């Protein structure tokens, strides 16, 4: 089984896309090597622009390029793409609905040792609140590579949330990414449904193994597109479930869990276990340590679901 970070998959897919579509351009703010847009620089250097450590200007320039017909992939860490440049993303990309793809790496806790200043746990909440913004978080190499291409074929602003650390392939080679469509990863026999996004899909799959020992067998659905949410699928499974679980490497305020609750509350009120970071900042540490500390590791997830099922 191959293991590759979604940021690395992004770089490879972007380079391939640049070869296929001459309108694709990449923008970096001194993080081309970290976010991996550097892979495109090798094959189309004239279409790879570095803006230095100046994210606000980079997002603004991406808006201008899109206004002139280009398909800009603007890259940075999630913290700076969504936070530092929020006004630019909202007013220059979102409001005019320009065709800018904001590709944000080191999201969630995956900025690891860099600590809280670099760990974006609020970015999905911010981006989701912008009208017309599509928010996607792929879970593995295959899904990322397909998502990078799929968003080039969609005309509008997209926030693509990527992780720093290697994740195992959880999808098969013949997997087909469909924007806005949830993916059933495991059809369980217990009336519990887990909705996971990004790296939490892998943690959830491992949690399923642990839960089996306790004779708990939830269904697991990968929600790669947080907005627009696959409301039909969410409601279909919420109706079948005693409770649902949202799993995200993000604050429980405003992200996937909130998006799901917004839909179920109105149509099918369902008890929900919100697995994400609480109303707190991250901190320095190794990825596995951080997942464990914030209750996002497979073991912690299994424990929390088991406990919740007894309530």
């Amino acid at each position: 089984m191959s293991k590759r970070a979604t940021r690395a998959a992004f770089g490879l897919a972007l380079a391939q896309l640049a070869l296929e579509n001459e309108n694709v351009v990449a923008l970096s703010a001194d993080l081309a090597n970290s976010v991996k847009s550097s892979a495109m620089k090798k094959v189309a250097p004239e279409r790879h622009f570095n803006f230095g450590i100046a994210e606000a200007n980079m997002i603004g320039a991406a808006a201008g390029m899109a206004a002139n017909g280009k398909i800009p992939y603007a890259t940075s860490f999630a913290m700076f793409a969504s936070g530092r440049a929020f006004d630019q993303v909202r007013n220059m990309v979102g409001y005019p609905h320009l065709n800018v793809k904001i590709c944000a790496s080191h999201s969630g806790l995956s900025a690891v040792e860099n600590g809280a200043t670099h760990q974006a746990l609020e970015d999905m909440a911010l981006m989701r609140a912008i009208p017309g913004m599509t928010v996607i978080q792929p879970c593995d190499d295959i899904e990322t590579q397909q998502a990078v291409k799929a968003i080039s074929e969609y005309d509008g602003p997209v926030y693509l949330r990527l992780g720093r650390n290697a994740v195992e392939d959880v999808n098969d080679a013949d997997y087909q990414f469909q924007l806005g469509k949830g993916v059933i990863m495991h059809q369980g026999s217990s009336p519990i449904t887990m909705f996971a996004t990004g790296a939490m899909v892998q943690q959830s799959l491992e949690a399923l193994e642990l839960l089996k020992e306790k004779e708990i067998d939830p269904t697991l659905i990968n929600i790669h597109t947080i907005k627009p949410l696959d409301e039909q699928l969410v409601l279909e499974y919420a109706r079948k479930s005693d409770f649902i679980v949202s799993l995200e490497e993000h604050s429980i305020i405003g992200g996937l869990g909130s998006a799901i609750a917004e839909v179920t509350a109105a149509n099918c009120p369902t008890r929900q276990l919100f697995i994400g970071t609480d109303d707190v900042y991250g901190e320095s540490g190794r990825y596995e340590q951080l997942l464990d500390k914030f209750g996002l590791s497979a073991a912690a997830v299994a424990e929390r679901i088991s406990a919740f099922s007894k309530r």
Partner: protein
Amino acid sequence: MSELSEHANNIRKNILKMIHHAQSGHPGGSLSCTDILTALYFSVMNINKENINDVQRDKLVLSKGHASAGLYATLAEKGLISEEELLTYSQLGSRLQGHPNMNELPGVDMSTGSLGQGLSAAVGMCLANKLDGNGFRTYVICGDGEIQEGQIWEAAMSAGHYHLDNLLLFVDHNRLQSDGFNSEVMEIESIGAKFAAFNWNVLSCDGHDVDALVAVAKYAASCKGMPTVVIAETIKGKGVSFMEDQPDWHGKAPDDAQLAQALAELGGEQ
């Protein structure tokens, strides 16, 4: 009065009528950049009914988006929107939003409003035009207070770095901003030296001499290898005696009597 000056005069009258009708808007900064808009739309930029919807053409980014009345009145003077529509300015359901929205109105080349952002968009347009080798030019109008925004200097740095000689920035140097004189709110001088330090070609011009503005824009097009900034020396509220140089008229609408006086000073109703 020259033909260009007549256009400018008509634009000024419409700015005042729009803001009076809406009882909302920014007359001071709209009137200070009217002659720049006139020079660009009537003698410099290639923009007309036939190419207005083109993705690629000469473009203007009105970075000081609060001067929207100036832009809309110019588009009307150019025949790209109707004069009747001008009176919908900033009213519910209008294409003429208080700050320009490119999705609402053809001829608005970038949505602006949050200050300091337009120059970055123009940098992106110029890079795209260079990639395409199409020869189109991109124009920007910034307020002088606006250049207090840090993003302006990020953009200035990148325009110099990428040698964007297809970019022309006008700084509408009227020396006033919302809270008063620039020098009292936050000193911005020396503007020219700051741009020069970021590898820009720096020119200056009487911002109310339309012929001189046309000449400087045409000269700038011949300057290769670096972007050009024209520091246009202007008067906020230009053309209306009681508005000129008065900080109060940054964001205030004239009442009926004030409108009548202003229009009389500009030569009365057509």
